[in-house]
């Protein structure tokens, strides 16, 4: 009996732990599939009956959603790609060169509020006429992607045994070749994790696009936020848009859960 009670208590605690997440996500889903009448009904309607797609159609028809989606893809894609091209070799150089001071600089960069980069970069872009351009957003998003990628790659390259590269060097390989053909393939999991986390943090970023994005260069999070201020309560389309914005990230989380957990416990901090 005591055992049974203990077991019931355990499952109850599991339920309590996951229910806030389930509640919010399901409510978002429910709002996005209900018509406006049901969304403003009290007591609230929980299960859309019948479920309607009009909110999703609205999002694409009225709000230029496709353009903002494309902007998000360009900005995040560009920032992650450049981040990997620059950050992976840097992680190698820091790990092998034992550049501890540079590593600390990267750590401080990870801890600094994103907002604090915004004023100087805004002035700079204003001076060279880049405010409102995709280029400015890609450059600014490097503030997010490079530190996380470098930080994770340092950890991975430190775990690649130096002896393998030394053996390659003895066989006549250059430093570059030892990096390219020995260390890089072994650190591949790190590249995947660094890329995924950089993608998530860059995709989720909001404030850079609010300040630096123009009417046509906004990324999704700030575009959805802007639609909030212009429309009155129209919860259905808003919930549908919110769901579409966060869907890619949630899908990546589900697919790559194992890698993300490994990457975060390897010392990743979130950005913000």
């Amino acid at each position, binding site marked *: 009996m005591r055992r049974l009670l203990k077991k019931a208590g*355990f*499952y109850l*605690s*599991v339920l309590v732990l*996951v229910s*806030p*997440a*389930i509640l*919010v996500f399901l409510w978002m889903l429910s*709002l996005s599939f209900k018509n406006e009448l049901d969304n403003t009904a*009290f*007591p*609230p309607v929980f299960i859309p009956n019948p479920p309607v797609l009009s909110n999703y159609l609205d999002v694409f028809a009225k709000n230029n959603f496709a353009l903002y989606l494309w902007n998000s893809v360009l900005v995040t894609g560009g920032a992650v790609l450049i981040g990997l091209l*620059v950050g992976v*070799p*840097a992680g190698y*150089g820091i790990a092998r*060169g034992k*550049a501890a001071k540079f590593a600390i*600089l990267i750590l401080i*960069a990870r*801890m*600094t*509020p994103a*907002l*604090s*980069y915004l*004023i*100087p970069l805004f002035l*700079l872009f204003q001076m060279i006429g880049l405010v409102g351009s995709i280029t400015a957003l890609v450059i*600014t998003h*490097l*503030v997010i992607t*490079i530190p996380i990628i470098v930080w994770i790659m340092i950890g991975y390259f430190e775990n690649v045994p130096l002896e393998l590269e030394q053996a390659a060097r*003895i066989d006549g390989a250059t*430093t570059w070749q030892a990096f390219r053909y020995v260390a890089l393939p072994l650190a591949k999991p790190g590249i995947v994790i660094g890329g995924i986390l950089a993608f998530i943090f860059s*995709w*989720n970023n*909001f*404030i850079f696009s609010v300040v630096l994005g123009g009417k046509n260069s906004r990324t*999704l*999070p700030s575009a*959805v*936020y802007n639609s*909030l201020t212009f429309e009155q309560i129209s919860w259905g389309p*808003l*919930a549908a848009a919110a*769901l579409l*914005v*966060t869907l890619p*990230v*949630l899908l990546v*989380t*589900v697919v790559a859960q194992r890698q*993300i*957990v490994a990457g*975060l*416990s390897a010392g990743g901090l*979130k950005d*913000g």
Partner: protein
Amino acid sequence: MTATTLPPVVGAEPAPPASARHSVDFTPRYWLFAAPAVVVIAAVIVFPWIFTLYMSGHDWKIGGGPEFVGLQNYAELFRDSRFLESMGHTLYFTVLAVVLPILFGTAAALVFHRDFPLRGLLRTIFVMPMMATPVAIALVWTMMFHPQLGVLNYLLSLVGIGPQEWVYAPGTVIPTLVMVEVWHWTPLVMLIVLGGLAGLPSEPYESARIDGASDWQMFRHITLPLVWPFIMVAVVIRTIDALKAFDTIFVITQGGPGTASETLNIFLYLQAFQFYKIGYASAVVVIFFAIVILLSLLLLYARQKSKWNA
């Protein structure tokens, strides 16, 4: 980068001894790998830091030119009651947004450390809030907080609790925003502590059980001391993250009602991009930066000192 000082291995020449392989000229070339990153980091990270410091010593409005005023911005800040209030809000928010996720996250880690059916799936669900786009989630919370039509007040009414004002009253706005923050970031604490639990040895538990220790005693005297360093890491990360909290507060309240939820971050944003006081806002950034660095050093130091004595 392709030049090498190692002689090409020709014929049956023996490999150089180990000491020769560790020759000094290995080190400088590794810097070349970091060179592109150094350039980019100098441009988008270090330059903004220095420029911010420079701006903080000037009276500078967007559109106008800089005028050197020395430390006047800083002096003015500490006379600005709105700034001082925002410091108070930040402190209140941060304390709650560190303590609660640490408690819940540690409890969650203990639960997910055990094996039970569907654990993998449930853990994925539990971790999802951490990855979800904060703006999107903030919009959903905003709809849930609606005083008349919101689902939260309805759910409370089911258990006999009267309607709450959530983010619409100065008294409840910060705890409500903390609730959203707790929702988002408890999973990160859980993951960090779970990592600590995964490395625990099993022997102490076996002998403690033979000695008749209760579950609570085992947690208090074995588990807690062993995972303490991980909890401290989580405290450091949470503190820095809570100080930086911006997206959800900005979307849900924009610092309101009035200035009741205006944290340092929101204050800074408004000064810079609503009132265009660049120099003034830069001084806030410098103070903010100093607090973040100081806190992380302090907490890392505390972590080294607190070799928990059980």
